[in-house]
C-alpha cells in the first residue's frame, strides 16, 4: 500500500513539477506569471487537439498509429499552444508594459475558458454521450513504461513505472537547476530578475531574457497539462478536471524557495499531501476537505519563515512583479 501511495503521489506531483519549474524560470526574470493555471489548461487541450486529429486521421485512413508520431504530434501541439500563451503574456507585460498581475489573471481566465471550450466542442464533434474525450490509444503510447519494471517488485513500482513525461519533468528540473546556478546565461537571467537596471548597464539584453525565460517557462508549464491528460488521466479530457493544480504549482514555487532542485522533492510531497486523505482509514468526507488544505498551509508557513529569517539566498527575485522601463530610472 505504501508503494502504491508513493506511486500515486509522484503521479500527482509531476504536473505540479512541470508548472513550478516553468514558473521558477519565469519568476527568475522578474515576471510573476499568474497565467500559469491557464497556460497548463491550454497545454493540455492543445495536446488533446493534436492527438484527436491524429487518431481520427488514422482511423479514417484505416491504418494503425505510428508510435513516434502519436507522441510527437500532441507533444509539439502542446508546446505550440503554451508558447502562444507565453507570447501573449510577454507582449503585454514586456513590450506594452502592462500590469503583470492583471495580465496573468486575464490569461488564466482566457486559458481555462479556451480549454473548456475546445474540450466541449471536441466532445460534440465525437458525438459521444459521455461528457469527456477519450484518447486511450494515444494515452497508451504516453504511458509506455520500461517493460521489465513490473518484475522488480516495489523498486520497479516506485522508480520505474511511469511514462516518459514523468522522467522528462525531473530531467528538465535538474537541467533548470544547473542552468540557473552554474551557467553564465543563468547568472544573467537572475541578474535581470534581481535588478534589471544593473543588468541593463552590464550589457545584458533585458527584454530578450524576459521574453525567452517567460516563453520557455510557459512551454514547460504547458507540458504539465499534457502529462495530466495523457498519462495521469489515461487520455480522458473532462472539463475542469485539472482543477486548482495550476495554483498549487505556483504555491510550490514558494515552497521550493525558487530552486528547481527542491521543487522535485516538493512536488512529490505536495502530490502526497493532495491524495493523503484517500489513504487514511475511516476518514469522513468533511475531514478530507480539511486535509486538502495542507499544501496551502505549508506554503504559507514557508513563505512566512523565509521572510522572517531574511536569508538573502532564499528571497524572491527582488524585482518580482515589477516592470522595467529603461527611461524611468
Amino acid at each position, binding site marked *: 500500500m505504501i508503494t502504491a501511495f508513493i506511486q500515486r503521489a509522484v503521479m500527482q506531483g509531476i504536473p505540479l513539477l512541470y508548472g513550478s519549474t516553468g514558473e521558477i524560470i519565469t519568476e527568475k526574470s522578474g515576471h*510573476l506569471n*499568474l497565467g500559469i493555471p491557464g497556460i497548463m489548461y491550454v497545454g493540455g487541450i492543445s495536446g488533446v487537439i493534436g492527438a484527436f486529429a491524429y487518431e481520427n486521421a488514422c482511423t479514417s485512413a484505416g491504418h494503425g498509429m505510428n508510435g513516434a508520431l502519436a507522441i510527437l504530434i500532441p507533444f509539439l501541439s502542446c508546446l505550440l499552444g503554451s508558447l502562444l500563451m507565453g507570447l*501573449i503574456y510577454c*507582449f*503585454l507585460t514586456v513590450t*506594452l*508594459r*502592462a*500590469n503583470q*498581475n*492583471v*495580465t496573468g*489573471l*486575464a*490569461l*488564466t*481566465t*482566457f*486559458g*481555462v*475558458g*479556451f*480549454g*473548456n*471550450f475546445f*474540450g*466541449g*466542442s471536441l466532445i*460534440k464533434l465525437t458525438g459521444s454521450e459521455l461528457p469527456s474525450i477519450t484518447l486511450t490509444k494515444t494515452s497508451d503510447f504516453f504511458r509506455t513504461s520500461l517493460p521489465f519494471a513490473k518484475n522488480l517488485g516495489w523498486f520497479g513500482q516506485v522508480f520505474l513505472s511511469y511514462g516518459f513525461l514523468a522522467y522528462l519533468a525531473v530531467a528538465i528540473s535538474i537541467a533548470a537547476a544547473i542552468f540557473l546556478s552554474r551557467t553564465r546565461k543563468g547568472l544573467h537571467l537572475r541578474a535581470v530578475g534581481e535588478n534589471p537596471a544593473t543588468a541593463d548597464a552590464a550589457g545584458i539584453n533585458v527584454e530578450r531574457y524576459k521574453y525567452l525565460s517567460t516563453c520557455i517557462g510557459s512551454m514547460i508549464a504547458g507540458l504539465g497539462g499534457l502529462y495530466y491528460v495523457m498519462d495521469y488521466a489515461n487520455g480522458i479530457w473532462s*472539463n475542469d478536471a485539472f482543477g*486548482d493544480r495550476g*495554483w498549487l504549482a*505556483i*504555491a510550490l514555487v*514558494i515552497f521550493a524557495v525558487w530552486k528547481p532542485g527542491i521543487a522535485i522533492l516538493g512536488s512529490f510531497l505536495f502530490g502526497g499531501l493532495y491524495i493523503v486523505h484517500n489513504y487514511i482509514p475511516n476518514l*469522513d*468526507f*468533511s*475531514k478530507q*476537505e*480539511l486535509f*486538502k*488544505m495542507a499544501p*496551502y*498551509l505549508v*506554503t*504559507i508557513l514557508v*513563505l*512566512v519563515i523565509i*521572510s*522572517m529569517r531574511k536569508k538573502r539566498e532564499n528571497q*524572491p527575485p527582488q524585482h*518580482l*512583479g515589477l516592470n522595467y*522601463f529603461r*527611461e*524611468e530610472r
Partner: protein
Amino acid sequence: MSKPEKKMHEPLIHLVKRDAIPWYQAWAVRIIAVLAALIFSGIITIILTGLNPLEVYQKMFEGAFGTDRRIWNLFQNVAILLCISLAVTPAFKMRFWNIGAEGQVLIGGLASTACMILLGNKLSQPVLLLVIVVTSIAAGAVWALLPAIFKAYWNTNETLFTLMMNYIAIQLVSYFVFVWSVPKGSGKIGIINGDTQAGWLPVLGDQKYLLNILIVLVITIAMYVYLRFSKQGYEISVVGESENTARYIGINVKKVVIRTMLISGAICGLAGMLLVSGTDHSITRDTAGGRGFTAIMVSWLAKFNPLYMVLTAFLIVFLEKGASEISTAFRLNDSFSEIITGIIIFFIIGSEFFINYAIRFRKIRKGGKAQ
C-alpha cells in the same frame, strides 16, 4: 571593418513616457480598444463557430437586457462584482496586491452561513441581521489582516500570501458544507431557513435585489469620498507612489498598510454577506465564483477610480451574461464567454500602453542616408 557610422545607430522606434493626456483622448483610446476587441472576437467567432457575429452580438444584448428579470439579475451581478472591486481598490492604490478577495468574500459568506444556521431560531430577525453583518465583516477583515501584518512587519510577499489564503478559505467552506449538509452527508447545504427566512436580508418593495444594489451604491460613493477627500485616502496614495516618501513625511507605513487591508477585507466580508444572506441563501465553494479575481481586473481597468468602476464592472458582467446567452442560444459551450472576456481584457490592457507611452519613429535624415 568597423564603420564609424555604426556608432550613430539610432533605433527605428523608441518609446517615450507621455505626460498625462486629456481624459477624452484616453477614453477614446479605450473605446477604440473595446471596439477592436469586439471586431477581433467577431472574427474568432466566425472561425470557431461559423456564426454571423452581428447576430451573436444581438443575442448578447438580449441575454443581458432581454427581460425584466434579466435586467435585475444583471444589476445584481454588477453590484456584487462592484462591491468586491471597491474592496480591493484601496489596497491596490497602496500597491498592496491583494489577490485574496476570493477567500475574503468566501469567509465572510461562511460567517453569515454560520450565523444563519446556528443562531437562526434563537435571535429575533433584527438582532440576527446585525450579528450576521458584524461577524461577516469581521471574518473578512481577519482574513485580510493576517497577510497585512506579515507584510507590514516582515515584508512577506503579499501577492503569494493572499493567493494561498483563498484556497484555505475554499477548503474551510467545503468542510463546513459537509458538516452542515442537508440531508446529512449529501455535501450540499441547500436553502438555509427556507421556511422562516431567518437571517435573510429584507426585500425592499418587490425587487429582491434592490437592497443589495442600494448598499453597494452607498459603498461606492463612500469609497470615492474616502479615497479622494479624506486624509487616510491621501496617505494611501502617498504610500502607493513611494514608500520612502511616505516615511519621510512622517506617515506610519505599517499602520496605513494594516488599516487599509482591514478596510479591504471588511468590504469583501460584506460582499460575502450580500451573496449568502442577500442573494443565494446558501453557500458552496463556488459562491464567490472567481469574482475575487475578476474584481482585480475591474478595479485596474477603472484606474482605481470608484466611479469609473461602475462602468467597468458593468462591461464585464454584460460580457459574461451576454456570452453565456450566446452559448445557450447557439448551443455552444459555456466557456465561450470566458474566451471573449479574456480577449477583450487583453485589448484593454494593451491599450493602456498607448495612453501612457508615445511611439517616436526615427526621423529621416537629409540625403536619405538613414532609412
